[in-house]
């Protein structure tokens, strides 16, 4: 059980506090309810570019990193299609430094021209390094628009193209900040060896006066139910052919989400998984095969991906794969197999709870889903999965008309 307390400031800031008396460190985690899905389709890559700018100095503090390093701490952040998450880790006795820094950049950024220019270049290099200069690096830039025709998930966090980042203006950036970076759009989680009243006092001191803004109302284009199979083939200079089958799956808060998750483990999570055994070990059609889910807040994707073995064709793999998926759709999973999957999940969750930072981030994320206590009750969601649920959800997932297929042909 991960214990925590929760309170809300007048300006709408939700605050979580998790006490851990065993560590000399403290974590200050700030989750903003904004991600790539909230971008304008002609101005993509902004949420991520913005994450970089958050380190470029705030209205009262010209340099974010130095004061934190001086306090013996460090910081990082990440952006996804759904959220932007910032975290600071530092010696507990210096926690006030982190609160001072985080509250000031929530209040307002410095918005210097130099910061925008530098981070623009840095993000462009990141785009190249991770997506363009790697074999198979641009797969997600192709797969997303294939799977999602109207929903903003059709573009990746890095952006649709480098041009959007090149053309971002200071006004664009300021507008983005005003719309999304305010206390009523954020969840703050503090973890470490403190007392609740101490944390309440400090948080009220630094965050209490930050004005709330008009709450951003999310009104995203809805992706119509997929009614037909879609596919695309691209040619790339890569060592082997690769395949990416993307099936539409339940959103994060949907009651069937955890069932879809466990199905991904069952069919392609590890070396005893069904696809690994049937398609790699027995049929030798692939040199690797995996199944995993995107875990997004809106309707997600269930992926089956891999690389063809030399001399094998997409057609052979396709036939074998649908055969296996058909078997799964007719399956009534045995208790033993289900127990095996649940046992692995149990071990993984136990290890995840070890790090202070992991706990703080997960508490914040579950609070975004509706209740931070989800971090504790999620175990039950997995425990309670039945073979019937697996049968039902598999049959919804593994239909050809629910599938978007990207094939990468090696040239």
């Amino acid at each position, binding site marked *: 059980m991960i214990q925590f307390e929760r309170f809300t400031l007048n300006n709408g800031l939700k605050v979580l506090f998790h006490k851990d008396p*065993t*560590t*000399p*460190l403290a974590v200050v985690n700030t989750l903003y309810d904004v991600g790539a899905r909230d971008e304008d389709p002609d101005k993509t890559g902004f949420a991520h570019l913005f994450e970089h700018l958050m380190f470029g100095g705030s209205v*009262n*503090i010209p340099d974010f*990193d*130095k*004061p934190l*390093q*001086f*306090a*013996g*701490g*460090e*910081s990082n952040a990440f952006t996804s299609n759904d959220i932007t998450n910032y975290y600071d*880790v530092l*010696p507990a006795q*210096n926690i006030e*430094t982190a*609160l*001072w820094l985080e509250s000031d950049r929530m209040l307002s950024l410095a918005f210097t021209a130099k910061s925008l*220019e*530098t*981070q*623009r270049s*840095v993000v*462009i*290099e990141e785009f*190249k*390094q991770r997506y*363009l*200069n790697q*074999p*198979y690096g641009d797969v997600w830039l192709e797969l997303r628009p294939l799977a999602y025709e109207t929903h903003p998930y059709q573009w990746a966090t890095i952006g649709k193209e480098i041009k959007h980042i090149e053309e971002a203006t200071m006004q664009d950036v300021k507008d983005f900040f005003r719309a999304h970076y305010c206390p009523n759009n954020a969840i703050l989680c503090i973890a470490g060896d403190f007392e609740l009243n101490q944390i309440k006092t400090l948080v009220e001191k630094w965050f209490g*006066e930050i004005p709330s803004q008009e709450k951003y109302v999310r009104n995203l284009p809805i992706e119509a139910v997929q009614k037909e199979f879609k596919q695309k083939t691209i040619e790339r*200079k890569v*060592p*082997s052919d690769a395949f990416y089958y993307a099936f539409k799956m339940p959103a994060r808060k949907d009651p069937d989400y955890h069932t879809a998750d466990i199905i991904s483990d069952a069919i392609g999570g*590890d*070396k*005893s998984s069904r696809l690994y055994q049937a398609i*790699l*070990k027995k049929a*030798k059609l692939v*040199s*690797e095969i995996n199944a995993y889910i995107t875990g997004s807040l809106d309707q997600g994707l269930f992926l089956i991906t891999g*690389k063809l073995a*030399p001399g094998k064709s997409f057609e052979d793999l396709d036939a074998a794969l649908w055969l296996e998926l058909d078997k799964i759709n007719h399956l009534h999973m045995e208790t*033993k197999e289900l*127990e*095996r999957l649940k*046992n*692995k999940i149990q*071990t*993984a969750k*136990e*290890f995840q709870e*070890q790090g*202070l930072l992991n706990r703080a981030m997960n508490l914040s994320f579950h609070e975004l889903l509706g209740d931070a206590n989800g971090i504790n009750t999620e175990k039950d969601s997995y425990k309670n999965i039945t073979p019937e649920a697996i049968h039902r959800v598999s049959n919804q997932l593994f239909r050809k008309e629910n599938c978007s297929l990207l094939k990468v042909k090696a040239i």
Partner: protein
Amino acid sequence: MLDRTISPAIHDIEKIHFVEPKIYPLQHETKLFLMKEVFDETVRIEFHFQAGAIQGVKNAANFVNSLLFSGTKDKSSTQIHEELDQLGAYLDQEISSEKAFVSVYCLRKNVEKVLDIVHDSITNVAFLEHELSDMIQEKKQRLLVSLEKVNFLARKAFQQHLFASNEVYRRQLEPEDFDQIKIEDLKAFHREFYLNGLSKIVVVSNLEEAIINRIVEQFKGWSNTTTKTYETKFNNNKGTFHITKKDAIQTAIRIGLPMFNKKDEDFIDFQFLQTIFGDYFGSRLMSNIREDKGYTYGIGCSLVETKLTGYFVIATEVAKEVSEATLTEIKYEIDRLQTEPIPADELNLVKNYLVGQLLKSADGPNSMMDMFLSVYDYQLPLDFYANYLRKIKDMKSETIQKLAKKYLNWSDFTIITAG
């Protein structure tokens, strides 16, 4: 009225709390290290073997490490993995130049059964032909993908030139090697470097004494019986070497030279120097090449320790058009370290940052275990860290300058660009 321009007070960190692991001898020099400060049901066990890439016949180390759970004469790899998965266990296998590791992650309630499977699988691995060919296929594909990446090509070339004086440290997997594997070589390697090559067992879990004794009894037969030799000093090829990668839009850069490990009297001071230079977000390299010029998404350096020596390396990937400019800036930053004293506020910032990092690396049972082994493996006492803390706090800019002049001469470096 709250004044946001004034930073809150910073509190000094005076000392750092360590817990030492308990040590249980196996046989000969091999020992088990136990960290019990774990307040949950997790178990992490790491088996260390002297089965690194420098040992035995070329590439045997790599293939054997991958095949450890590929099946015995009684159980297929599928069965082994199913049994381990049924117990909710995760496995990891890793290999470096000098060592090999097998890591096991599970919950306390299953540890005995999991270890029985691990012991049987590794002791009785049969090296079956079809398992070998599956592994070859997988590895070959991964290698071919890696060979398309500039950072991999740079690392490969760096290894060639940094370890110019020692052939076994230069060993790397090449696509041609896959056709030349002989099962007899793999079996011989396995016997010598796994079944007689266990150098330590690391346990992080709240396990009872009886279980620990069981582990000792079960695995002590693998204890290594012979001492192996390791390099004491590398001689690198100095100068610039370029690897061409057609159509690359970024260039990977690796720059480095032989150095030392924590037994050297300059180690702690050099750690401070290399942190200022490139081992934190506000470093000279990051501030210049990323934050000022925007040439890269990341640049850094580190001091890498080997068993008896070490080396220093600077690494980055930059836009192709600015690769020459990046080399110029790196050299410029080295010159600055040698000619300009570090300003007091930067020195103090890095002091505080390093103390914070030390605190972080002593936080939690896994970190404390790593900290302990980090000095134990070099036959140093744990008060190394008290000394470390003191040296950091007392650091003077003259020391940094002196060290930069002593160790960072551009003409001594191996400089690799790939792209």
